[in-house]
């Protein structure tokens, strides 16, 4: 990515804007990070400690938030009394499975749309994207009816299929942009060199790898964080982390400690994933959009 130094000169207005910007960013950080801090800290607290709050206006009383004896009992509860091990696996399988299937079919379809001219191509492409235009809720009831008659409700394959339904058009749309940016001459060179069409396709996959990587992440995020499909189609046999967390809210008692721990368990892997591949992700997302 080409970036350059922007020449700028200070004016009173620009100084004021920069101060305003700093203040804004500071508030924004507090606003976005505080819930995670509260979640993380509370997951190590006993119930009584978690609900200890300072009086309004008592800023010195803030220390009460950090005055606790850490305990792992909520985490233990998650994996012993609730079967969160299974739920993590369910989430991983559903998210990973749909990502893999979407990438395979998505890259094949995107490649075809990018390289082959056929009648109705534009219409087909629009039709593929248009499946993402309706809100998920709008199609939930018919989708549920279809899944039920196919006996897919409450199964992992059903959940994978549901996620793929929504990830695949996205995959095609996104990956097509990446394939469009790979010069066709590279494949032609491969074919003249002795490759079959399919080998030529495979040979350019390394060139769209950033795109595929970025897409896999987005796809996994979508499935991992999804609640709607998981609650309706995956309910019962294919319970994922968000649904399992929701079930910790019971009519007679809300297990705040476990909910906080479950939140950490759910969020941490995606945050780690994000940290590890963020460079890759940004490069991938912009590479498709901007011609180099």
């Amino acid at each position, binding site marked *: 990515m080409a970036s350059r130094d922007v020449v700028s000169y200070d004016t009173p207005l620009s100084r004021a804007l920069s101060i305003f910007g700093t203040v804004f960013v500071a508030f924004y950080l507090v606003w976005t990070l505080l819930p995670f801090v509260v979640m993380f800290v509370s997951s190590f607290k006993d119930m009584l400690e978690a609900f200890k709050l300072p009086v309004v206006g008592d800023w010195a009383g803030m220390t009460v938030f950090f005055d606790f004896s850490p305990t792992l009992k909520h985490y233990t509860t998650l994996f012993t009394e609730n079967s969160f091990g299974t739920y993590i696996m369910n989430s991983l399988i559903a998210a990973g499975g749909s990502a893999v299937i979407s990438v395979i079919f998505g890259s094949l379809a995107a490649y075809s749309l990018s390289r082959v001219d056929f009648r109705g191509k534009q219409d087909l492409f629009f039709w593929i994207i248009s499946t993402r235009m309706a809100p998920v809720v709008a199609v939930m009831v018919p989708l549920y009816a279809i899944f039920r008659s196919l006996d897919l409700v409450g199964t992992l394959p059903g959940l994978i299929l549901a996620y793929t339904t929504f990830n695949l058009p996205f995959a095609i749309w996104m990956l097509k942009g990446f394939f469009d940016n790979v010069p066709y*001459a590279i494949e032609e060179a*491969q074919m003249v060199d002795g490759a079959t069409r399919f080998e030529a396709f495979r040979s350019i996959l390394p060139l769209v790898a950033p795109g595929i990587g970025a897409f896999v992440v987005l796809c996994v995020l979508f499935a991992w964080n999804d609640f709607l499909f998981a609650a309706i189609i995956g309910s019962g046999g294919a319970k994922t982390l968000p649904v399992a967390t929701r079930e910790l809210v019971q009519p007679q008692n809300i297990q705040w400690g476990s909910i906080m721990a479950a939140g950490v368990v759910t969020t941490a892997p995606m945050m780690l994933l994000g940290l590890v591949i963020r460079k890759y992700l940004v490069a991938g997302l912009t590479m498709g959009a901007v011609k180099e």
Partner: protein
Amino acid sequence: MATVTIRNVWKYYGETPAVKDLNITCPDGSFVSILGPSGCGKSSTMRMIAGLEHISSGDILFDEQRVNDLAPKDRDVAMVFENYALYPHKSVYENIANPLRLRGASESTVKERVEGAAKLLEISHLLGRRPHELSGGQKQRVAIGRAIVREPKLFLFDEPIAHLDAKLRAHMRGEIKHLQRTLGTTMIYVTHDQLEALSMADYIAVMHDGELQQWGTPSEIFNNPVNAWVAGFVGEPAMNFLTCGIKGEGDGVSLMHKNFEIPLLPGQVRQLNGAAQTGVARMGVRPDAMSISMTRPSEAAIRGEIFVNELLGGDMLVEVELDDCRIRVKTTPEFAGKPGETCYLTVNRDKWHVFDAGDGHAYF
């Protein structure tokens, strides 16, 4: 090694014909250049030979074998693309090795052939690099290396040096020609640069609007163009064209213009057969087939006014204004005329051409 025969080949994109009834035979081991401006169908022709485009009708044969329905990989050709088309994620070594690997060559063969090709192209020291670390000229050598490493039947070069700077282009012209001579493999070389075609090829096929205009050796194309279009396209600076009247009968035929009246040489009168003798024609004369002087050398000299002088190092190009047009003439840098002065041009009638004013075909 193969003779390539293109027989009655048409290429349509939708309703638009890009190549019209093309017939070419490239002799075994020859260097053939397909020359034409962009959009003339030369690249389509090459891509049909490579198998990257379907042939709408007609046949392409390698020796006696019809290749119309063969996939590119089965045609045993090697192609160098205009933009090199190197694999950006592979090293130079792997780029050159790619055709061998696709054909399942053993590791020792790959090493030997890649190093041989690299040595021939003087890129041995670059084998470990990636394409983005190379200059344009180096990339182009790698692309050629990839083509020669397999020893194919036929080389297809699609404007391979169009993106290099002028100096490097001149250098590579010689190198490519030498390479083809050394390997002895039939080569088809597509270019829009007439200088490349003239300087490198054994035969040139000049194309325009999808049609073959002329096939011949470089000197035939340059000295005996079949029509005004070829005459105007080949040669730099370009040929001057003047629309003239034709006057006279028998042996005394001359070309008439507001500024001059020049008699044809006796042999040329016959070539300008009866059909054109009363009408008009286009006279074509290359800038180096005229001489310029400040004094009137003879009655047949063309009188004009110097418009501008351009010094081209070893030569001087003078643009001379006539009553209704300007023509360019090449002379020596010592020429003393100044813009605005009257000058006289003498045409070398052994080297001039007359074309039909209608369809442009050449009388001589």
